């Protein structure tokens, strides 16, 4: 078969227009909230609205008496009343009736968005009326709204299962920390407060459930990993996994926010209950924006204290850090996110001596969980800001400081193991240095939309400019010994005498969350099969037909799916040569194993691949109003191989915009366990007029030795360095370090007045 990519239309390396583009641009694509069967019943999920309270009584009769209400699902209907992605610590429904098959106490609400009941009715309005009619009585319990109060352990969030709210800890001890401080000429010390962030995907949680022709409880929704959704549903409903089917409709963004369960289990319960009642109708549920913001996890709020020691010539001698993540009421993926924050707080540098202690802490706040970067943004913000402060104190070019410490081929990482081969960090740093050197000229760049507080066309002396730099790395794939895998199945079609297939089917579970994963899978399949991409049919994200792909997360899917496609194609090729028509190949790719880290020292190999990135950001700061504009971004990445260069650029620009909101405008107000601004009119994500005018994507293809076609991952990397680069640029412009953000105009002006940032 031909392996010459140039002979295949839409093969690897081509910016082929993705198949879903037209439908998404014209609005023809149907997202889960659009797909309401005509005979569907409507479900409303009732939140407890109690950050911490014990359920005293729940009477569903008034709700069931409402005209149009069909039934109400309660805890008594949940066979195994628990779920959780990495540990079962969350009840599906809060209730007094308990099947006794879970250790999780289910009569206590620990989060304002804990689910109390599912009201199913003929119309959405009737379901809402029924929800309002539920007779419920609560006994309020004392709150631990934040990490500071939770750490005292006077009130335990999970008294039965976690004897301390500080329920998960990790440690690193490397080298001789005292010797490290003794060798340091300079010590940088800081305390950083990192804010929550809301995913703000356009498509809010929605889905439809029914019993399919083969009797399977079927949920059509959006998510990031069909097979994990299926496993969670099967566990709670006490069904074999093959009696549950999960299908993804078109997904309008996820960013980690759809990695955990939202409507999956409740929709399955609703379908099951209707079936038990002999009602053969699908059930649909769609959250409002407010329900979505209140009802799903956030990027973790974090407090990080850090010390960095270095010699006068800029060699790092010691790193110390204490990390606290606010896990909120349930673990979600906090223990895994903590791992990433834990490693990334050391930076992408050779650190001879280190002590790092990291903890996840339960509170009665919104759970923290997966969000693009997965702990990396919090850790890297601190690592990079500490480095930029060090450069300032040493009077050294921040890029030169990185050159003297950066990880390179053969370097030993913070976990005392060599980095996986193919360390592209030096190259991405130099790519930035070349395009935007620290002392290079800053070109004024016209914004997309003029800032209405500024005189237009006037070069006002109140406007100061600055440039900032940050670099880093992010793992590709699951870490810490998780059984990482990805499956694919490929069918080559053609006649007996054909030299090569005339068409190809590829079956894959990988979630197309908007990033272009299906386009990448189709292009990789076309390339290896030697057929034009238009001859490749994709069958995606339906547990009835596609294998376990693992999650669309951890910047892993191109890498993992690509390797699974390569393996499946090799199998199919063997069958083809043996004369099978169709020639079918199925493959389960398993990457090199990773390890859990030593509990005392943190030693071990946590990851099998990394992506490397560096960024330069130019800002303008209005010193009289505090308004910040980002004029220019240079974002350099070793992506290994760009399967579709335009889609890689899309990931870079999208990540920059999302990180722009994180560092500049998005301010989630969480007070006494309640989100106070659950609307997009109050929680300000960037508009097109706010985003950087110029994002120069520098795509280096240095090749990962074990990546498919050399590909690594790119989804999270451009996000991670942006906040510290902006903070450094604002410091360059104003002389003030902001150790907390978002940099709202009000906070910036106060910071310029006081010479330091006000707390949140």
């Amino acid at each position, binding site marked *: 078969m031909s392996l010459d990519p140039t002979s295949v239309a839409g093969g690897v390396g081509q910016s082929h227009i993705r198949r879903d583009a037209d439908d998404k641009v014209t609005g023809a694509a149907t997202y889960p909230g659009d797909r309401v069967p005509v005979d569907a019943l409507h479900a409303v999920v009732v939140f407890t609205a109690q950050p911490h309270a014990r359920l005293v009584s729940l009477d569903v009769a008034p709700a069931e008496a409402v005209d149009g209400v069909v039934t109400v699902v309660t805890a008594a209907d949940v066979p195994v009343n628990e779920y959780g992605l990495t540990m079962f610590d969350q009840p599906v429904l809060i209730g007094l009736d308990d099947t006794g098959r879970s250790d999780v106490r289910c009569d206590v609400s620990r989060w304002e968005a804990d689910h109390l009941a599912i009201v199913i009715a003929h119309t959405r309005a009737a379901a809402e009326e029924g929800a309002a009619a539920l007779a419920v009585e609560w006994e309020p319990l004392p709150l631990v709204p934040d990490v500071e109060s939770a750490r005292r352990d006077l009130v335990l969030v999970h008294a039965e299962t976690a004897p301390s709210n500080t329920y998960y800890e990790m440690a690193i001890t490397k080298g001789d920390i005292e010797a490290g401080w003794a060798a340091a000429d300079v010590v940088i010390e800081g305390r950083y407060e990192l804010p929550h962030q809301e995913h703000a995907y356009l498509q809010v949680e929605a889905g439809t459930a029914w019993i399919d022709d083969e009797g399977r409880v079927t949920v059509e929704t959006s998510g990031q990993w069909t097979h994990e959704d299926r496993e969670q549903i099967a566990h709670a409903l006490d069904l074999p996994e093959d009696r549950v089917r999960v299908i993804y409709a078109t997904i309008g963004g996820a960013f980690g926010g759809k990695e955990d369960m939202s409507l999956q289990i409740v929709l399955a319960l609703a379908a099951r209950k209707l079936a038990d009642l002999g009602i053969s109708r699908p059930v649909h549920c769609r959250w409002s924006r407010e329900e979505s913001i209140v009802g799903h996890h956030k990027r973790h709020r974090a407090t990080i204290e850090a010390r960095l020691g270095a010699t006068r010539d800029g060699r790092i001698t010691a790193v110390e850090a204490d990390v606290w993540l606010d896990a909120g009421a349930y673990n979600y993926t906090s223990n895994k996110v903590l791992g990433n924050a834990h490693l990334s707080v050391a930076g992408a540098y050779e650190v001879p001596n280190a002590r790092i202690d990291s903890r996840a802490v339960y509170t009665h706040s919104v759970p923290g969980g997966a969000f693009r970067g997965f702990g990396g943004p919090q850790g890297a913000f601190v690592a990079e800001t500490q480095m930029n402060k060090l450069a300032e104190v040493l009077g050294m070019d921040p890029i030169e400081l990185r050159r003297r410490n950066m990880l390179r081929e053969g370097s030993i990482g913070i976990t005392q193991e060599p980095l996986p081969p193919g360390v592209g960090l030096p190259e991405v740093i130099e790519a930035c240095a070349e395009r935007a050197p620290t002392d290079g000229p800053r070109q004024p760049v016209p914004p997309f939309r003029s800032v209405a507080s500024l005189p237009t066309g006037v070069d006002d002396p109140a406007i100061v400019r600055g440039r900032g730099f940050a670099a880093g790395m992010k793992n590709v794939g699951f870490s810490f010994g998780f059984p990482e895998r990805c499956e694919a199945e490929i069918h080559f079609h053609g006649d007996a005498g054909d030299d090569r297939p005339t068409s190809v089917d590829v079956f894959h579970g990988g979630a197309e969350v908007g990033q272009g994963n299906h386009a990448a899978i189709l292009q990789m399949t076309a390339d290896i099969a030697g057929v034009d991409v238009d001859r490749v049919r994709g069958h995606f994200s339906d547990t009835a037909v596609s294998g376990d792909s693992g999650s669309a997360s951890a910047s892993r899917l191109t890498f993992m799916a690509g390797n699974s496609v390569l393996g499946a194609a090799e199998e199919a090729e063997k069958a083809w040569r043996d004369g099978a028509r169709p020639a079918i190949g199925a493959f389960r790719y398993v990457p090199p194993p990773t390890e859990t880290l030593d509990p005392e020292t943190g030693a071990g190999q946590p990851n099998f691949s990394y992506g490397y990135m560096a960024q330069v950001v130019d800002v303008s700061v209005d010193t009289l109003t505090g308004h910040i504009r980002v004029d220019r971004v240079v974002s350099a990445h070793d992506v290994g191989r760009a399967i579709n260069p335009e889609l890689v650029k899309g990931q870079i620009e999208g990540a920059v915009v999302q990180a722009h909101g994180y560092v500049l405008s998005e301010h989630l107000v969480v007070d006494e366990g309640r989100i106070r601004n659950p609307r997009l009119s109050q929680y300000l994500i960037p*508009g097109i007029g706010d985003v950087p005018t110029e994002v120069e994507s520098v795509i280096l293809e240095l090749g990962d030795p074990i990546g498919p076609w050399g590909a690594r991952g790119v989804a999270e990397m451009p996000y991670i360095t942006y906040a510290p680069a902006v903070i450094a640029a604002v410091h360059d412009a104003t002389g003030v370090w902001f150790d907390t953000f978002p940099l709202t*105009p009000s906070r910036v*002006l106060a910071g310029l007045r006081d010479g330091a940032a006000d707390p949140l």
Partner: protein
Amino acid sequence: MRYAAPTTVDEAVGLLAADADARVFAGATDLIPQIRSGRPEPSVLVDLKRIDRLVGVGESGGTWTVGAATPTSTLTADEAFTGAFPGLSEASGLIGSDQIQNRSSWGGNLCNASPAADSVPALVANAVRAVVAGSNGERTVPVEEIVTGPGQTSLADDEFVVEFQVDTPPAHTADAYLRLIPRTEMDIAVVGAAVRLTMDGGTCTAATVALGAVAPTVVRVPDAEAALVGSTLDDATLEAVAAAASAACNPIDDKRGTIEYRRQVAGVLAKRAATIAAERANA
């Protein structure tokens, strides 16, 4: 909720007079979100856009007339109007977003009575008059007399604003409007500042300064106006303008900005708006 689309002013007044819970609307860009967020539903929604007088912009005999329901995108696209009132046009173009501006109107922006309404400081700075219709006929009142507090107006239940009137500006007169929000669109003003100046050979001969979002209603700043008149807008004058604007504020403390922040930025924007208005008037 009933929907009515009268085609005459009298018909609309009749609908309002007949039902105290009826409400008029133009673009409904405030009304619909208010209903969705739980405010009581009006009994009748009276759509004013079918009434000829309510939509349109033009000058006649030294007076500009703007229909109360005219989309603000019509105003910003009107070159003659924008040439005569650049600041009023800027303020109109800052309401909501590009999409919102195809529905938003001065009448709605004024009568929604938000302290942060973008068009209102510029309307006040230009001494715009509102023509109000009701059961007792029509009356003409200065716009600053319409809004009495957040969400409150001086209009009777059966009254609504039909159109706005404003005198064609004298020679060497121009206005400017600046507004601060944390992002560039789709947010509510933290501070808005409108300034209108008449210049004579580099000296200011008339000035109005009006601030939005810093008090329950739009605030005129007489001390800033007094500082401007007779000045050449030298640095000392501009500092006096800023100080007077800051002093005139009586803001709230909320998520969008602290009291201190609003005071300070009100001064900055007033000063900057005055500089722009003077440049335009001198041009």
